């Protein structure tokens, strides 16, 4: 088991290295000269040259890359062109905001989807099954930005139940913070719930057909015991991979939801950096998000060994 864990961990190193090269190349492909953008309106060639050499843009590309990677290992991702803010600390504080919303949303989605998926499969082809499937496919088909806008219109503007947009940290003001969280969390959780219900239902259907389930029933075990003891772990383990994938994607890709609700998270930082042509911030965001994604998948793969009774390493 430990050899597998070590191997799986070591496999992330070449992936991350390639990811860093891809990010570096992508940023260099963006048209426009960062030095000119930093200086704003200037025609002075000497000032431009000075800025280029200050940014290291006059060095050969491979040396620029090595310097950049070296700095990353020291926790130095540079500073924002526009605000001069330290990028590493900006990423960490923005990530804390995104993580709050994402973890709660994925948690809620999992708690709803596991029983719903199990029950739908257990009662296959009954009205209950069709009902659950119908709800899940509706959840899947609602674009998050539209669902968000509709909730703002109905729940915030018309009923006034929740504040429309914005964000307050739950550490500063718990009740207020939670009120701001409700709508973004529902928005993110909806799609996730739809995906997971379908996934768990299909897994469960396959397991319910296996001989050992028939055997368990033949022994006279109650349906509840069969479901909980024999079906649950086997059908939930594969869903873990999907939960991990979406968790990773949401941690970095919640830019749309964060835009709808004006939440100062990681996704919003990334989109703002694209608009502002803030290359160092964009570079930092891309790298950080893919790093988180790779790490979440690593953790999920390792957890998989513990949850899935079939994987014995």
């Amino acid at each position, binding site marked *: 088991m430990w050899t597998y864990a070590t191997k799986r961990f070591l496999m992330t190193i*070449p*992936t*991350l290295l*390639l*990811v860093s090269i*891809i*990010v570096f190349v*992508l940023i260099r*492909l*963006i*048209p426009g000269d960062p030095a000119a953008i930093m200086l704003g309106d200037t025609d002075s060639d000497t000032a431009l040259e000075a800025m280029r050499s200050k940014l290291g843009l006059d060095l050969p590309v491979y040396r620029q890359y090595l310097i950049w990677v070296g700095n990353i290992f020291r926790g130095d991702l540079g500073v924002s062109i526009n605000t001069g803010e330290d990028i590493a600390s900006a990423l960490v504080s923005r990530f804390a905001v995104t993580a709050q919303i994402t973890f709660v949303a994925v948690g809620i989605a999992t708690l709803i989807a596991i029983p719903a998926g199990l029950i739908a499969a257990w009662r296959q082809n009954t009205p209950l099954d069709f009902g659950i499937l119908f709800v899940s*496919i*509706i959840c*899947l*088909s*609602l*674009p998050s*930005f*539209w669902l968000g*806008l*509709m909730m703002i*219109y109905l729940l915030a*503007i018309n009923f006034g139940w929740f504040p429309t947009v914005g964000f307050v940290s739950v550490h500063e003001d718990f009740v207020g913070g939670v009120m701001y969280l409700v709508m973004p969390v529902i928005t993110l959780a909806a799609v996730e719930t739809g*995906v997971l219900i*379908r*996934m768990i239902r*299909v897994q469960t259907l396959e397991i319910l057909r296996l001989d050992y389930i028939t055997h368990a029933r033949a022994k006279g075990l109650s349906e509840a015991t069969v479901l909980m003891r024999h079906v649950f772990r086997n059908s939930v383990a594969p869903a873990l*991979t*999907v939960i991990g*994938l979406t968790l*990773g*994607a*949401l*941690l*970095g*890709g919640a*830019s*749309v939801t964060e*835009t709808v609700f004006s939440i100062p998270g990681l996704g919003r930082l*990334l*989109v703002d950096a*694209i*608009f502002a042509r803030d290359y160092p911030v*964009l570079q930092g965001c*891309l790298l950080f*998000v*893919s790093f988180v*994604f*790779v790490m979440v998948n690593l953790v999920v793969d390792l957890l998989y060994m513990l949850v899935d009774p079939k994987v014995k390493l």
Partner: protein
Amino acid sequence: MSDATSPKTADMRRAFALPRLLRRANGLIGSAILISILAFTLTGVVWTPFDPIEPDFLARLQPPDGTHWLGTDEWGRDVLSRILAGARTSVFISLCSVSFALFFGALIGAASGFFGGWTDRGIMMLTDALLAFPGLLMALAFMAILGPSKWGVIFALGLAYVPTVIRLMRGSVLSVREREFVEASHAVGDSRLYTLLLHVMPNCMAPLIIMATALFGYALLAESALSFLGLGVPPPEPTWGNMLSESRGQFAMAPWLAIFPGLFISVTLLGINLFGDALRDTFDPRMRETGDA
């Protein structure tokens, strides 16, 4: 000789798949929705009740009524006309980007799986690294390079989906490669390229078709999302996403601006999801909801 062992029966079965597909409730409803959306899109290509782009300041922010069925926006433009014109743009972008991804993804993936060795290892390493960028992120990065435009969105989404298609195609080719009719093709002296293109790739089409349906849904959603963020198709050309984006300013007073474009996106996605499910159940019962798309 190789033709005799080629799975003709599978083709026959596929020819009968359409009626079976329609017999399933989700296939029926999904096809009905998609055909309606297609008809709606084609209508938008040839005719819109009002000009979707020219402002009409006398008719600003009117709620839905007999003249403007779905109301007007802050420039007095008819929302229904803009949704019709937007369907054209959104569907065009999704079709182009999915075709782009399928064409290059299938070719690269097939070559990778069929030829193996260092080609395969190199391609897969790069693919895995590209797949380490979650969700919309790759498309966002490409949009930063290409700038907001219609073709920018097409290339960004196309490029973002290529790695997924490569993986799928490589997997199918690896399993088909070992089948007897491929060996037969070698035996009669067909060139490797001929075998790949004429015998291996045609037998990898079922999962590809299923993925194409799913990708079309993703592309439609991603296009709306990019346009919603302001990184997609720039105004005044309407897409369902940038209509939603523009609605944000006044939608407290004019909710119809946000309701209808979103409704069209949702219904289209619902059609694609239902149709995709039916397709999966019909063609490939083992492929159901693998979730790695």
